[in-house]
């Protein structure tokens, strides 16, 4: 098992380097704005643009630039500096990370709880009115675009601009360490939006997984042993049905940690997703690289965690 983990981690490292290289190439090859020109502004002489380009290290060959960047990371854990503000990318990432983590993990708790509950209830009475209603509702929520949903909940429930002034509005996020209560209340609406579509998906997933599980022979055995139906459903049914859900959950959270930009924008939560988007509009390569690297890291780690978890969740799985 240890061997397996070590091997996965090493592969993860290789993958991260490959991802970095890919982003490196993409942003220099595809038609994005040229950072030197953006920085130089209009009316600029070509001489100045060239000097700026040299300053930013953009005049070196692509492999040379990449090598410098890689060395910086591996030796000094230095991810470079923003072309615009000069802030260190590392400090920006760590500054923004808690907000995204708060948003995503909190949202995940909400959607897993909601999705599982609805899914289990629906699975136990397939094709009942309750089942049809909840699956119909799920379809609706999945189809709602996140950005639109965010605007709607703000216009309905935000304390500053809503019809019913209940929850703190956009821009009210504060870090957990600053004010735990305000942190919590400011995230309620964003958590709902993040969770809405996902809860629906997970409800459907749980439903179909549990329906399939409840048709298995070992469920029949459990009933034949005289166990209460509650125990049969939860201890035997859900326990088996939950495995695919956990796999997908880890991957979903891993992906979302790098890309929650829509919700972060609507609610003005200063997270990694927004940092990434702002950097893209400015062609601020170091930040873009940093955020993409971080997103890739999350996904890789999530994958590894899932594989490890599986060995505990399903005893039939064994890694050599």
């Amino acid at each position, binding site marked *: 098992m240890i061997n397996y983990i070590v091997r996965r981690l090493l592969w993860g490292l290789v993958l991260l380097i490959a991802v970095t290289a890919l982003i490196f190439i993409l942003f220099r090859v595809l038609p994005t704005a040229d950072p030197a020109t953006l920085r130089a502004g209009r009316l600029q002489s070509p001489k100045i643009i060239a000097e700026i380009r040299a300053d930013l290290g953009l005049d070196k060959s692509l492999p040379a630039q990449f090598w410098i960047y890689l060395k910086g990371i591996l030796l000094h854990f230095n991810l470079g500096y923003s072309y615009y503000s000069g802030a260190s990318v590392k400090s920006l990432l760590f500054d923004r990370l808690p907000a995204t983590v708060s948003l995503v993990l909190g949202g995940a708790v909400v959607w897993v709880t909601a999705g599982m509950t609805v899914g289990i209830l629906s699975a136990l009475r397939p094709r009942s009115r309750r089942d049809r209603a909840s699956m119909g509702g799920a379809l609706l929520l999945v189809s709602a675009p996140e950005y639109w949903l965010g605007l709607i909940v703000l216009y309905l429930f935000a304390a500053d601009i809503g019809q019913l002034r209940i929850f703190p509005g956009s821009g009210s996020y504060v870090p957990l360490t600053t004010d735990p209560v305000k942190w919590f209340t400011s995230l309620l609406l964003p958590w709902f939006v993040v969770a809405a579509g996902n809860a629906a998906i997970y409800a459907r997933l749980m439903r179909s997984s549990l329906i399939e599980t409840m048709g298995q*022979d070992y469920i029949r*055995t459990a*009933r*034949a042993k005289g166990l209460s139906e509650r125990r049969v459903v939860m201890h035997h049914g859900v326990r088996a049905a939950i495995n695919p859900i956990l796999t997908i959950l880890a991957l979903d959270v891993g992906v979302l940690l790098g890309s929650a930009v829509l919700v972060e924008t609507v609610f003005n939560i200063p997270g990694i997703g927004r940092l990434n988007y702002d950097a893209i509009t400015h062609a601020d390569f170091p930040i873009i690289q940093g955020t993409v690297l971080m997103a890739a890291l999350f996904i890789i780690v999530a994958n590894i965690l899932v594989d490890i978890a599986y060995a505990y969740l399903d005893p*039939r799985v064994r890694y050599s």
Partner: protein
Amino acid sequence: MSGERGEQPLLQVEELRVEFPTEDGIVHAVDGITYQVHRGRTLGIVGESGSGKSVASLTTLGLTRGQGANISGRILFEGRDLLTLPDRQLRAVRGNEIAMVFQDPLSSLHPFYKVGAQLIEAIRAHREVSTAHAREHAVELLGLVGIPDPRRRVEEFPHEFSGGMRQRAMIAMALINDPKLLIADEPTTALDVTVQAQILALLERLQRELGMAIVIITHDLGVVAEMADDVAVMYAGRIVETASTELVFAHPEHPYTWGLLKSIPTLTGGREEDLVPIPGTPPSLIRRPSGCHFHPRCPYAQPDHARIDPRLEPVEGASSHQVACLLGAHARQRLWRELSAGRMPAEALAAAGLAEDGR
């Protein structure tokens, strides 16, 4: 059934009917069957797939209740009608006084929990004991069913057991609360022949030691010959013949039973003797054949067998032997004589010289 002792049967099934409404129509899974099981004795229920043999047993334990089934009749267990028992009380019986063993032990055991944990769960569902105590009992049972090194095995997962050991573990789980009745649904079908023999021997031994009744459901007449005291032959949701094992094997009365017997290869039959399969396929339980349900596949069917539905009636001279067939008793004896001499059904039919009305 043997009514020798005259004591009350442990399990008495009366006119049990189980129907499942489906989109295609009503499935008549069990169509009015009656049988008994006595303490310490084994009843073998034989039939093809789709004969309704499993549904009857599942219904005994109330396991068909959630599926929208229409159930009528009575199932008396020690005098109590299980069909009318509320869920909670029926659950107290399940896994406790009546236990069941299923066909595929790999899929019938939960893959994620250790075998010991599943045994302990079975105990604690019905007894207030500590986990440690329950584990001791589990180890004991595993030893009882012949699993070596039970103390280690108790901490393993089902996929770490071999097929035969898994079935033993399932049997241990079924027996762990000292049930009075054990229902074994095709317990050896998924196992190797050698392992089969071991499991059957185990069941027999346990029955002797524990004095419990067994219902063994199977399509394999060899198993029946080995284990059952009494036999009920089922076809299309009905019992078509029932008697003690010796009688059924020595003097089978129903053409279906003949078909089953003739399709078994025997060591004593000559090489030239062909196996005689029963032609056709089991009937749909939604749209059953008119009249005698077996008539489309019966080589000896007469024209009015398509109209008249036979009832289960005692055979002359052996009141415990019942059969549901429209052929006359003498005709049946003649036919069986011919068949057991090695003739094919068509020849037997000619040789027996049936009269117009099937006598």
